[in-house]
């Protein structure tokens, strides 16, 4: 069996590559080698399915690339101490870079390399989507691998599992639960930032790709509410469909890979059970999906196992590459700031940063105040919790900007300013992270602990204070950390919004970055804003969140 696989593998890979390339060509259309003109997006609702499919295709390609790279990176970091010391800090810094920060790279590298053609723009968009999906996947892979119990690792070593077999029997199974969970998060992120990924700006040049994100973006910008609602409807439909057909079954499947058993297990959701009754779904699954998945697994395992033997060398090479890039980047930055005096805008950065810091912090605080009570109300009733989770998955995928008309109405009715509006928008980037994590923490409270609390007479507020809140504290902190990052990502779309032909903005670093990227094209401002923002986020992570997490994890963690 193995030998046959060895022979078929190159052909399989070649076929897959050809198919992918053919798809890309067909997908991009006939004008793939001419310079891209950025035509006006045709707002006809009949084209909406096409736009949706194209966005879906981009998201899929970006996701697959993110998964493969996350597996390779996470595995490398878990195996080699040297790689870990290089990779983790790099990931940490890069994940704090807002998506706009990758525009220069996207435009310069991808669009430039492909000669300004439509193919280049597509790849650039896929790259941008990739940057919103990749980081948590990589961290997730790394964390699952380092928490594999020692005994399991010993057993696999003793049974001589090496290369691809090690991947399919040890690494991938260990990684599956985290991968599934983070995939859901990544996709939500991908949808959230689709707007920004499909409308790429670099100074005066603007590239608009036909897709759901740009469709929504233009609708909001021009104030065409019916178009926006249609776009949102399509988005919700796709997200819900994916949840039912892809994520729900995957989650159930991933349960068997859990290396420990805590809390209670959600049963198969009713929709999944219903779908399983359909013969079409079952035979599709049996004949197409599972063999495809298995084959993909084997191919991936072989690909990933190849660099295994030269792992230390690979780490060294990667490290040198990173250093080289960092060196060139620093040089470019130095030149940027010395070739002409710092523009006035740059001097406004510290205060703007402070304002934005306040908004993000408030966003996290608000998210906690909303999520904890909601989680408490829903965690005891399993069905309610599953319903809440499903709704959250859908809501979490809706881009912040799409909430803006609703928030704008609120702002007008209650006569609040953009200051409040921006905080509400930041909330859309923070709430879901806190909520997901708190729910997961609440599920970790063992049945016996709850029974003990009941027998001892702890009810209502006393239960919340003495049992619920302490038990969820580690998850709450994790949620806050990710919400903090999410909030900073959302700040770009919260402080500078073009809706209904009007500009709504407040003083803040997000607004500065937006203006510099989409309007003035001032590279100094872009670079300085990005640097200061990333520096602040990383600093706060190191000095506040990490120590907090360590303290809380030590005292409050439930080891069943």
């Amino acid at each position, binding site marked *: 069996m193995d030998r046959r696989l060895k022979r078929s593998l190159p052909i399989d890979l070649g076929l897959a590559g050809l198919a992918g390339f053919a798809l890309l060509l067909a997908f991009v259309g006939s004008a793939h080698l001419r310079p891209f003109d950025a035509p006006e997006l045709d707002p006809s609702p009949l084209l909406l399915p096409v736009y949706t499919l194209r966005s879906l295709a981009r998201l899929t390609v970006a996701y697959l690339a993110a998964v493969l790279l996350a597996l390779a990176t996470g595995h490398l970091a878990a195996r080699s101490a040297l790689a870990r010391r290089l990779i983790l800090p790099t990931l940490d810094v890069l994940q704090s870079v807002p998506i706009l920060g990758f525009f220069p790279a996207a435009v310069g590298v991808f669009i430039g390399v492909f000669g300004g053609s439509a193919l280049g723009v597509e790849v650039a968009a896929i790259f941008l989507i990739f940057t919103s999906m990749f980081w948590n996947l990589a961290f997730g892979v790394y964390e699952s691998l380092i928490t594999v119990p020692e005994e399991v690792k010993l057993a696999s070593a003793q049974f001589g599992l090496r290369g691809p077999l090690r991947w399919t029997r040890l690494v991938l199974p260990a990684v599956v639960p985290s991968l599934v969970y983070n995939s859901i998060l990544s996709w939500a992120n991908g949808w959230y930032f689709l707007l920004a990924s499909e409308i790429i700006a670099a100074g005066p040049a603007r590239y608009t790709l036909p897709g759901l994100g740009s469709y929504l973006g233009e609708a909001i910008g021009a104030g065409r509410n019916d178009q926006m609602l249609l776009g949102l409807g399509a988005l919700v439909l796709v997200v819900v469909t994916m949840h039912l057909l892809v994520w729900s079954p995957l989650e159930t499947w991933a349960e068997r890979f859990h290396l420990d058993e805590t809390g209670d297990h959600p049963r198969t959701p009713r929709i999944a059970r219903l779908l399983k009754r359909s013969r079409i779904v079952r035979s599709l699954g049996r004949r197409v999906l599972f063999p495809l998945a298995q084959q993909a697994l084997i191919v991936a395992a072989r690909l990933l196992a190849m660099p295994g033997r030269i792992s230390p060398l690979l780490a060294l090479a990667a490290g040198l590459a990173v250093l080289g890039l960092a060196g060139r980047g620093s040089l470019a930055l130095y030149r940027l700031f010395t070739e002409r005096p710092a523009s006035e805008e740059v001097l406004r950065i510290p205060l703007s940063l402070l304002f934005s810091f306040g908004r993000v912090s408030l966003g996290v605080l608000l998210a906690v105040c909303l999520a904890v009570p909601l989680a408490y109300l829903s965690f005891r009733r399993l069905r309610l919790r599953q319903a809440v989770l499903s709704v959250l998955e859908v809501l979490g995928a809706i881009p912040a900007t799409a909430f803006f008309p609703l928030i704008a109405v609120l702002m007008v009715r209650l006569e609040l300013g953009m200051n409040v509006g921006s905080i509400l928008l930041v909330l859309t980037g923070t709430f879901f992270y806190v909520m997901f994590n708190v729910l997961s923490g609440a599920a970790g409270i063992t049945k016996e*602990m709850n029974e003990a609390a009941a027998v001892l*007479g702890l009810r209502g507020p006393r239960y919340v204070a003495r049992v619920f809140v302490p038990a969820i504290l580690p998850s709450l902190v994790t949620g806050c950390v990710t919400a903090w990052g999410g909030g900073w990502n959302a700040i770009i779309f919260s402080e500078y919004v073009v809706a209904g032909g009007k500009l709504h903005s407040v003083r803040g670093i997000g607004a500065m970055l937006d203006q510099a990227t989409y309007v003035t094209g001032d590279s100094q401002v872009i670079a300085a804003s990005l640097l200061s923002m990333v520096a602040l986020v990383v600093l706060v992570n190191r000095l506040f969140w990490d120590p907090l997490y360590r303290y809380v994890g030590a005292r409050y963690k439930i080891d069943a």
Partner: protein
Amino acid sequence: MPDAAPSAGNPTAIVRLENVEQFYDRKIRILGPVDLEVRRGEFLSLVGPSGCGKSTLLRLVCGVLRPSRGTIWVGERRLQGVNRQAAMVFQSFALFPWLSVVDNVALGLEARGLSLRERVKRAEKHIDLVGLSGYERALPKELSRGMKQLVGLARALAVGPELLCMDEPFSALDVLSARNMRELVLDLWASPELKTKTILLVTHSIEEAVAMSDRVVVLKANPGRVAESVELGHVPRPRRAGEAAVREEVDRMYTLLA
């Protein structure tokens, strides 16, 4: 022979289950119908194979589970909600990892309206009774399994329950700790210091049940129901595992279960 006491409110019964049935998901019968009585001052054990619903019965008695059908009497009244006369010790200890030993033990006293000073005093007294003096400020993760269960025991006793319920409390302990703890429970039961005089023990070990109880109710599985109630009051205490009388009763019970 199943317990039969058709009149409501039997003064010698601390808890009485009348025609109790339990269903899972409204379709699958776990338990019942069961008639069971826990008499005041007795040490009663429930034994049976897995799936016979003995842990479910315990939770019904404590009121953390509501019966699908039937009534549970506490004294002369129907049980509604948690049974305030009872306290429970858990198989997996169920201690709260962020609370110290004394805070864990005092947890149930807060709901009973005691002041802080009274709570601490009472908690410390019970920590002393189980032999953990000096460990008041320790965190659960710093304790051995045997010590954790002692904390669980102290926590249950501290609320001064009339009925102490124990769900396979010794099964997660090593043999020596389990033996020491069994003797401690019997000592405390007899001691005038505690007002807890009725104990309901769920165990899968027949030897344990015979060694400790006044009466053993044997349960059968699929669905769970009472098979037999065996009186052991005539077996003199203290009981040693190797004694003839004890071995005789153990053998008899194995035959019952066969």
